[in-house]
């Protein structure tokens, strides 16, 4: 604005400049409106709701921070927070490592490479609910195929989905199985963007396969790897569907496998406690924020964008 004020020659341009801005706003409007209506408004509404006591169909009552006081004194909240963390610990390192390993294998020239790529990606195209139903049968301790197979060796298989210490591990296995294909495709794309000349040069210098992997592959795909780890962590923190479908409230493993999202859902839609549920959502928001900040700090130190 200032520069335009001192230079009258630009007046005509200023006008065009303005209309360009109007066009720009018009173009991004659908996204902005969508964001406001679907994300920002509900977010603010949740903050307000968390200060109210809202049960059933009656009007909500303002209670200040009472929901938060009640929430932080609830043992199950801390248990569920741990469950969510534990789930991230179980799924992210193992899941991403497997995906990386498979991606490197599928990037080499092996027979039937495309078929393998297809097979690994298949779980991604199946609806999560269907995945959960199939695994429920596999893990069924009474008649499931897994325990039948273990039974052949005369060992009684564990209660995969009802042993309090095992249920969350079983669910982590399902989560890794269904996500590995997506991560693999991402990493594969990263691998294929690495120029072959790096490897040729390294080979001439006498680097072996392991050295090549750690000194060329890992640094060059670190942006992809970072993205994959970030997405996987977010998704694991938000884990809901598989736990919800496989561990019901009468399951003895419920307390030790209910993630924060399951706890939220239960309060909001089973106990119809929407105010309290909003407070849980705020708590998960804080946790996800901490994770995100932590990861972006790590990104600056570890990721190589050159």
């Amino acid at each position, binding site marked *: 604005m200032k520069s335009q004020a001192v230079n009258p020659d630009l007046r005509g341009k200023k006008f065009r400049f303005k209309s360009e801005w109007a066009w720009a706003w018009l173009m991004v409007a659908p996204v902005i409106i969508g964001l406001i209506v679907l994300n920002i408004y509900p977010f603010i509404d949740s903050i307000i709701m968390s200060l109210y006591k809202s*049960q*059933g*169909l*009656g009007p909500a009552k303002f209670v200040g921070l009472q929901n938060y006081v009640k929430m932080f004194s609830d043992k199950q909240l801390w248990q569920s927070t741990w469950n969510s963390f534990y789930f991230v610990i179980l799924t992210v390192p193992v899941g991403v490592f497997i995906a990386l390993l498979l991606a490197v294998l599928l990037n080499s020239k092996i027979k039937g490479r495309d078929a393998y790529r297809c097979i690994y990606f298949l779980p991604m195209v199946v609806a999560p609910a269907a995945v959960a139903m199939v695994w429920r049968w596999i893990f*069924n*301790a*009474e*008649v*499931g195929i897994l325990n039948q197979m273990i039974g052949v060796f005369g060992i009684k298989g564990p*209660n995969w*989905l*009802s*042993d309090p210490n095992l249920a969350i591990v079983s669910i982590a296995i399902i989560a890794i199985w269904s996500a590995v294909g997506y991560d693999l495709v991402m990493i594969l794309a990263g691998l294929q963007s690495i120029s072959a000349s790096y490897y040729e040069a390294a080979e001439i210098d006498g680097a072996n396969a392991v050295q090549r992997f750690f000194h060329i592959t890992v640094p060059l795909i670190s942006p992809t790897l970072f993205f994959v780890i970030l997405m996987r962590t977010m998704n694991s923190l938000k884990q809901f569907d598989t736990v919800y479908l496989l*561990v*019901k*409230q*009468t*399951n*003895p*493993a*419920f307390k030790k496998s209910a993630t924060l999202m399951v706890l939220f859902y*239960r309060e909001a*839609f*089973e*106990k*119809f*406690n929407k105010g309290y549920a909003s407070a849980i959502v705020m708590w998960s928001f804080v946790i996800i924020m901490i994770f995100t900040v932590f990861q972006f700090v790590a990104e600056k130190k570890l990721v190589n964008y050159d």
Partner: protein
Amino acid sequence: MKKFLATLLTLCLLATMCSLALAEEQITLTFGFWDTNQEPGMKAIAEAYMAEHPNVKIETQVTPWDQYWMKLEAAAMGGALPDIFWMHSNQFFKYVSAGTLLDLTDLGLDYTPYPAGITALYNFEGKQYAVPKDYDTIALAYNKELFDAAGLAYPDETWTWETLRDAAKKLTSDTVKGFGAPNDTQSGYYNFVYQNGGFIFEDGKSGFDQPETQEAIKTWVELMTVDGISPTLESFTDMSNDEQFQAGRVAMQFVGSWMMSAYTSNEFIKDKFDLAVLPQGKTRASIYNGLGYAGAATTKYPEVVKDFIAFCGSEQANILQAQNKAAIPAYAGTEHYFTDLFENLNIKCYTEMIEYGVQFPFSPNKSLWEPIEAETMTSAYTGEMTVEEACNFMHETITEIEAE
């Protein structure tokens, strides 16, 4: 040319709209309920009504129990309830107190043929908000094959808790458990509670602090945890009590009359089981409950909805639901249309038990404490809490919730 085309198109549109308005007003109503087994019965009623009223179209919507109330709550808040829907005693107060139900007082219906208790369930401040649909009681189902193999006499009306436990012990083997005692209320420990002289909720008060209530629940839980005659909680999470009984892995269980159409269409179990009245404790009791047809206060066609609900309550509709194996109809004198369908089964025990039946406990805020009860009792089964602690906790929770 363009103008001509545009005018032509507009004219076409207008003509269609006019012809739609001129035709007799076509009314579409939605009818929501939760039981797939009863879908044929509900469809038959809707079709019979549509045959008499060609301008009305009734669309049935089945939503499984777990999601039904969630969906209904969201619909109630958004003012988009189905025009007609099933109501349950657990949830009635919540919906009626929020003003979401259509007042059915002026339906001109004679309520004498229905069980008085069920009509009263859906009465709020002197007004009727749902028409009784059916009633159900709980009976003892047993696997005849397993009894024969163990050389035991079949259960009958002389049975007590002790006979049940003794028989179950004899029936229990490596592959079979004698009796299923799951974490269930209506087809579970509530029956024991009332047979022991206890109660769950009466006159605005929780009965979980009563020694009779606590003793009954303890006996029920210990059938699994101490006597070992029931499959474990872990086992029930992989296969429900019903599934285990139908698979021949459990020899006896308490089962509601609403399960009969499923049992008799299961090839594996249909010829192997029979029914008896519940064994008695200090006294006889069987939990009964009844559903109702309710209408939405927000419906666009209140008169048509009322007319259809009145039809649902008629003798004709009750016979239709009975003949389709839906449930025991609420209309007195039509029960036999249901019981006659089960020739080789002692199905009559369900209707006999209504004599000493106890209404499935309900309270204004039961929808809020019921999920907590399921969770708390799980802790009593796992031993995280004793049964007394769990009951006392429930007593405090219910007292607190109902006081608000």
